[in-house]
Structure formats: structure tokens, C-alpha cells
């Protein structure tokens, strides 16, 4: 990407430069406000000219996001944002592209595209707002809603087993997978910055509150007390520890099985030390969930892999260097021809 490296030419932006003139129309109290504000705030730190930034979204509450960003933006159709972003990157590999989606948009109707944008490793930053509910259609269960969830479309409880977004992303070959929480602004900002700096497809699950249809879905991570018990901050190279200072707990890994132990009861070297380059252990980590386990937040995995558009560009360059630029007049008369006088 050519942008981002020309730091001296990039104007000194403030958060305000990224606020559009549109009235924000989310419900008061929606978790999306905090995400919008955090994204606007981190934009100046990208070092990318504002005109080179594009936000692409699908359909759903989260997908209104581009209207509120003073960048280029495209609010598209349900589930297809990853495909549209892929095409944009193919035509314009010089642009910095974000995809904003939700649990329904990105994992239900758009699950297939999510799979493929991640496995191809297209250079886009994907923000998936997970509120475990369909908000815009007024309260049906989503693919991340828990089994037994009572919603408008499941009065007797959902019979669908939910998908774990981060485990899904890791399973399909994502090269950057992280999770953060809408109410933890500092952590969200840090996580989003790292995602935006990643070369390749970066997937960030943002646990987000829908105060109208699924209030406190992530309450366990909001409440001051329970948060201490349940939030596991993961950091590369550091042991996986959580819980209150006076009763610190940790994770140990037996084979591929995680176990919670009291920190005081095992020697320090027994703790599972997070290695973000190890996809297999990240998959185990991503699968852990409250209440049996703590909920891991932070960068679960980051690995390097070839970027799809780079490979395409390489082939194009090679084709030109080996055989010269395309020439339609020559092509038309190539091969078998005959002349009538």
C-alpha cells in the first residue's frame, strides 16, 4: 500500500475531521456510538490521507456506520460488504479499506463472503459488531444468540447453536483475529489500531450492546465485579491470567484442553503463555467463553501471509514484463488469419 508511508504529506487530522455532517440515527444508548467515536478518534493515527480511506458496510444497524464517517463510504447490501471490498481492493490496491458488519450481516447472510475474504487474506480491516441479536429488523435471534434465547422469532427459545465469530475466523484462515468490548474504550482503540496496521485481512469482533433488544448481552463483561472475574486480557508473550488480585487465576493448557487454575497453586512456568503466531492454540483460546471460562479479549492471533491483491498485482507485473503491455491490434491479428483482396 502506497498510502500510510507518505506520513509527511498527510495533514494533521483531529477526530473532528472524520465526523460527517449526517445526524447519527442509532438508538440512544446503543453501543455503536462508542465504537463510532473510537474509530473517529483513532483515524488521525493511521497516517493515511482521509481521501484514501473507504468504509464499506452491508445491512443492519452497524452498517449505517459509513454515513457517519467523513471518508469515502459505501452502504451496500445485506452480507456482501466483504465481496464489494474485495473488488474495490482489486481495482484500487492503494486505498485503505474498512468493512463494518454485524453478527447477522457478517455471519448469517454474509457468512460465505466472510469466509472467503478471510481465507484470501484481502487487505481489509473488518469490524464485526456482535450484539447477538437482529436489531434493525426489531429483535429476532442472530447466529451468535445463545441456545434457548427467547426472542420475537423464538418465543420458546432458540434451537440454533451459536457460532463463535473469532473461532470461525481462525478456522477459515484469518491472519489477524481480535476481540474487544464496546465499553472498554482504551482497549478497543488499541485493538483497532493494531488491526488497521495489519497487512492482510484483519478481523475484530467487537462485543456490543443493543440496549433495546438484547440489553446487557455482554453484561458479564460490563459489570465491574463480574468483569474482573470474566475478562481475560490476552497479550502476546504473556501468561494468561485473570481474576481479582487477591485470588488471581490462570489458564494452563493440557494438550488442546484449557483448564482454569488458581495462580497460587501452580508454578509460574506452567501457565499458558499466549503466542499470537500459533493459530492452533489461538483456536482453543478463542473457543473459551464465560461463564465456564473467562472471555478472552485482545489480539488472539496475528500471522503473516501473502496478500491476495499483492499476488494478483505480481502476476500482472510479470505478464507485462515477460510479454509487454497488452496491444489489442496485435491480439486481433494473432494466430490464424486470412486475407481477402
Amino acid at each position, binding site marked *: 500500500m502506497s498510502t500510510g508511508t507518505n506520513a509527511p504529506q498527510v495533514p494533521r487530522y483531529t477526530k473532528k475531521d472524520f465526523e460527517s455532517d449526517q445526524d447519527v440515527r442509532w438508538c440512544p444508548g446503543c453501543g455503536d456510538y462508542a465504537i463510532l467515536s473510537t474509530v473517529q478518534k483513532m483515524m488521525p493515527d493511521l497516517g493515511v490521507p482521509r481521501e484514501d480511506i473507504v468504509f464499506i458496510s452491508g445491512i443492519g444497524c452497524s452498517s449505517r456506520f459509513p454515513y457517519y464517517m467523513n471518508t469515502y463510504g459505501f452502504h451496500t447490501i445485506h452480507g456482501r460488504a466483504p*465481496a464489494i471490498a474485495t473488488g474495490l481492493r482489486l481495482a484500487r490496491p492503494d486505498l485503505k479499506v474498512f468493512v463494518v458488519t454485524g453478527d447477522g450481516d457478517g455471519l448469517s447472510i454474509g457468512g460465505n463472503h466472510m469466509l472467503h475474504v478471510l481465507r484470501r487474506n484481502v487487505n481489509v480491516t473488518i469490524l464485526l459488531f456482535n450484539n447477538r441479536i437482529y436489531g434493525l429488523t426489531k429483535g429476532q435471534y442472530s447466529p451468535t444468540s445463545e441456545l434457548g434465547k427467547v426472542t420475537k422469532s423464538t418465543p420458546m427459545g432458540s434451537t440454533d447453536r451459536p457460532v463463535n465469530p473469532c473461532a470461525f475466523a481462525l478456522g477459515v484462515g484469518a491472519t489477524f483475529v481480535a476481540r474487544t468490548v464496546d465499553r472498554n474504550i482504551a482497549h478497543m482503540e488499541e485493538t483497532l489500531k493494531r488491526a488497521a496496521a495489519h497487512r492482510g485481512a484483519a478481523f475484530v469482533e467487537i462485543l456490543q450492546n443493543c440496549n433495546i433488544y438484547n440489553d446487557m448481552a455482554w453484561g458479564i463483561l460490563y459489570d465491574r465485579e463480574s468483569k474482573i472475574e470474566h475478562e481475560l486480557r490476552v497479550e502476546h508473550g504473556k501468561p494468561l491470567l485473570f481474576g481479582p488480585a487477591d485470588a488471581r487465576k490462570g489458564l494452563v493448557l493440557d494438550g488442546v484442553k484449557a483448564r482454569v487454575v488458581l495462580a497460587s497453586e501452580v508454578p509460574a512456568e506452567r501457565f499458558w503463555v499466549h503466542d499470537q503466531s500459533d493459530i492452533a492454540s489461538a483456536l482453543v483460546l478463542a473457543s473459551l467463553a464465560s461463564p465456564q471460562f473467562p472471555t478472552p479479549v485482545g489480539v488472539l492471533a496475528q500471522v503473516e501471509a501473502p496478500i491476495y491483491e499483492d499476488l494478483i498485482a505480481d502476476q500482472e507485473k510479470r505478464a507485462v514484463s515477460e510479454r509487454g503491455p497488452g496491444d489489442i491490434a496485435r491480439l486481433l491479428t494473432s494466430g490464424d488469419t*486470412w486475407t481477402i483482396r
Partner: protein
Amino acid sequence: MSQTTATAPAPAKPRRILDRAVVRFAGDSGDGMQLTGEQFTTEAAWAGNDIATLPNFPAEIRAPAGTLFGVSSFQLQFGSRRVYTPGDRLDCLVAMNPAALKVHLGDLKEGGLLILNTSAFEKKNLDRAGYATNPLEDAALEERYRTHKIDITRLTVDGLAGLPLNAKEKDRCKNFFALGLVSWIYTRPIEPTLDWIKKRFTKNADVAEANTRALKAGYHFGETAEIFAECYGVEPAEMAPGTYRSMTGNRALAWGILAAAQRTGLPVVYGAYPITPASDILHELSMHKRFHVRTFQAEDEIAAVGAIIGAAFGGGIGLCATSGPGLALKSEGIALAVMAELPIVVFDIQRGGPSTGLPTKTEQADLMQALYGRNSECPVVVIAPATPGDCFFVAYEAIRIAVKYMVPVIVLSDGYLANGAEPWLIPDPKSLPDIDVRFRTEPEGFHPYAREEATLARPWVRPGTPGLEHRIGGLEKQDVTGNVSYDPDNHDLMVRLRAEKVRRVAQEIPPTTINGPAGGDLLVVGWGGTYGTITAAVEEAQMAGKSVASIHLRHLNPLPPDLGQILRQYRRVLVPEINSGQLVRVLRAEYLVDAVGFNRVRGVPLATQDIVDAINQLVEGNR
């Protein structure tokens, strides 16, 4: 390979001159009939004939040998006069096995040449083809046709004695024997095929030698065997001077895209999900990366159209090709491009339907889907090529219109055009019209949905342009500003504007060419791949003294501005289509004209004779 004059070899036997001939090679999927037909086409092209071809193959990749559904065939008509179609009835049928005979014999003219490979007529193949008795022993075959029972397999294998190839490899050369024989019968030059063999098998000298020998053996067999009393000549056709090549519709379409890519200098993103009969366009384009065409084999049809919308938003040219089922899946994406007013082109290579239908057969039944197959009021430009070579110009034209008017364009090709070939006068790319690409860069007074007066196009802005940051999407837009708007009057206005924008494309349409008198008893109106058949039928009726003319519509939405006026100059209007009557409905609705349809939906091109009959019926019923 290039030559200026084609010379036919001097035959030892009497040579009868024909105006034209229709030949069909038929055999098992594994018998190489497509290749045989293509090579014979090249030979006839070399000899200066006009040509039309009809490949016909099963959807199954390796259908069980000897079965009726595993039969593959290639038909061509070549002539010294203008050839519009691959022909209705066969002058010559080559049947490499009993199944091929059973499937195709009905199309052979009485007294036509029938060449049978006798060694394939053994019990297993006869059983598979459902013959209770061996047709080789059927006296009626000899009475009705000029039947030649030749052991092609044995003659081929015998001719390859001494070559280090196994029996199976030798057997595989038998199609070249058949080609050699037919080349002799019609005195078409085998040089281009010899040349092709040399190039194709550079890395395998033995196979090259085997095929060469088989080809020559077949040729000499015709010359020396006592069974053929005469051979035939077809003089070069009077064709416009210039350099020609044989061109199929799908290749022409791909090359039209390359021409537009070079002319505009813009990156082209071609999204595709493999689907018959459109996949060859993807294959062709993926070989031409040096034209900055980025082929994207998407995860599905929806992603393919999504990606090209993304590319168009980025200021690139977004294109995709599909067939009917894929067009259905792309509907929502196309509607987004209508709403966002972004230029994309979707090529629909129509095939038999509905559902999976007849994947390798042709049909024209997606017209209504192209015109109306989206939610709400969602007009797009629809155009259709008339011949294989025309696909080149139509692809280019579709791109030109899309970027000039900021509209999606659907191009309706079909399986017949896609795989069919014709001798194509190579155009000078400089003669192609300009493609008017203008990116807005001026921030002063910028509004995403402000419009240009003549075209109603909104400005195309490349992301990366400072000061023009803006947001678009699928929600209804406020006129001019492009902001989200739910205002009732604004919505009504925008519905009208989107329609008017498409209507204004009519200013791009040249006056309609009328083939025949400017008024009279009957006007035949066609569109798409039926051009050849309709033209041939109308010319035949005209020669018989009928007051008949024809027009062929390239532009299906908007329709040509002069169409209503032309329709009123004839007492009757006939609309032949390979569907249940789609254009005819449009014409009736649009112009209140009592047009009648001629409709056959058989997966194959219409028969010229059927249209001649329909013309006669209407003209005579008139009196």
C-alpha cells in the same frame, strides 16, 4: 499462419460445384468431434468460404461411452454465398458410433451423404444406443441415403503401424481420418490442419506423426477408394476485402473487453463464478493480464457482482459474465448498482432453463429477467449481439454506455453465439468509438447526485480524490445531495430520474437497418442469436417474391426511437424467438401493435425453414 489466397487441391475424381454444404460430425464425447469440426471450419475458412458453426455437446464431462446422452456433435455450413446459419438439414453426416447415428440421422436430408464407422457398430454400442438390430444391415439406410460404411478405426490403426503408440492412442486418431476423408469429399485444404497438428503436438512427435498420417490416410482413402464417385467444391464466397479470422462469441466478447480496457486505460475487474456457457470468457480473460484485467473467481455469483460493484465504486471497470441462474442470483447486486448509479456490465450467456435446465444448450428466455427481474422499479440498459463476431462490438458498446450514463448494462448473449464461430473481418481498433471517462476532481459545487444534462449521469468520483469524500448506498437518495431520504415526492422523482436516464441511452442508437422494403406485408423482428436464421429465412421469402422485411434489435432497453414508426409500415409483424414470446409481449405493450410470435424452445437454434413457413402463412393469410 497467414495466407493470401486459398487453393483447393486438384482432385482426381470429378468435382461438382455446390453453393453451400451442411456437414455434421457426430460421435462419442471422447471421439474428438469438437476438434474435428473446428479444424474443418478452419479449412473451409482457408478456402474462402463463409461459415456458421453449431457445436453441440453433453453437459456431462465424461458421459458413459456409447450412450445416446454422451453424443457430441459439431455442425457447420460453408458456402460461396453469404451463410447466415449452421443449416437446418444435413448434406453430410459422419456418425462415429451407433448412438451418434440414432441421435442425428433424422436431420440428414434424403439422399444425403452418410459416413459410418463400422467398427463401432458392435453389440455393446448397439445395445447402449438401443438398437435391437444392427442398422448397418438395414437396407432402408442404403435406399434413403448415400451410405458409406467404412471401418475408420481399422483403417486408422493400420495406417499407424510401426509407430510407438499403444492401441488406445492409435484409436484416438480416428477423428483425423474422418476429417481427412471429409476434407477430400469437399476438397477443403488440409494444410491448416497439418500446421495445427505440428504446433499442437510440438512436445510429442509420435502423436503429431500419428495424427498427420491419419489425416492423410483419410484424405487419400477418399481419393483412391472406389466408393466415392465424385467430390464437391464450394467456391470462395464474395466477402468484403480485409483480413479475417474465425471468431467465437465468447472469445469476441472477451476481446471486446480487452479493447475497452486498452482504450480507457482503467483497471478492469472481471468477477466470475464458473457457469456454463460463460466460463470460457473467464478462461480467455485470465490469459490477458497484461491488459490490466484482473480476473476474480469469486466464491459465488453474488460475490462476483459484488466485487465488480466495488471496482466501479473505486473508478475501475466492473464486469461479470454468467448465465440465467447466475443472473437470478445477481439481481440484488444489480439493483444496488442501479441505486448507487455505478457503471457495471453483466453478460448473460443464456442457456436452456428454468433452474439448471439445459446447461450446454441455447435459449433466449432471459429477456424478461434482464428487463424486469429485480425488485421495484429497477431499469437497466439491455443490449444483445447478433452474431459471434458481433459480441466484440457489443461488449465494447456496453462498457461505453455504462460509463457514459453511469448505469448497469446487461448484455444478452447465448450458448449458440458463445460457442458458434464465423469468419470475422478483423476491425481496426482505432475505428472504435471513444469511451467517455470523466472523473470528477473539482470539490467546488460537488454533489454526489447532481446530474449532467444530456445523459443525467451523476459524477464518477475515484476514492482518493481530496475534498470529494462522500457516502453512497442502497437507501433512497435525495435528489442532488445523495443524502438518505424517505420523502415521498423525492422517491417518486428519483424513480422517474433513474428511468429517464436509461431512456436517454436511446440517443446512442443509430437508425434501424431494414433488410428489405420499407413497408409491405410483413416485418420480421428479431433480437440476439437468431439473426442468422431470420435473415436467411427472410431472404428466401424475398427471393420467392414475398413482400417481407426484417429488422434485428441490438438495443432492447431502451428500444430504438424509430421502432414504433417502422412497425406501422407493415400489415403484419412476426417475432421469432427461442422462448415463449418475450420480445413480442414488449412490442405489443409498448407500441399497441398486433405482433405475433413464432416460438420454439428446443435448446437449439430455430430452423430457417420453420420461419419461412411462418412467414408464408402470415403473408398468405393476409390476402
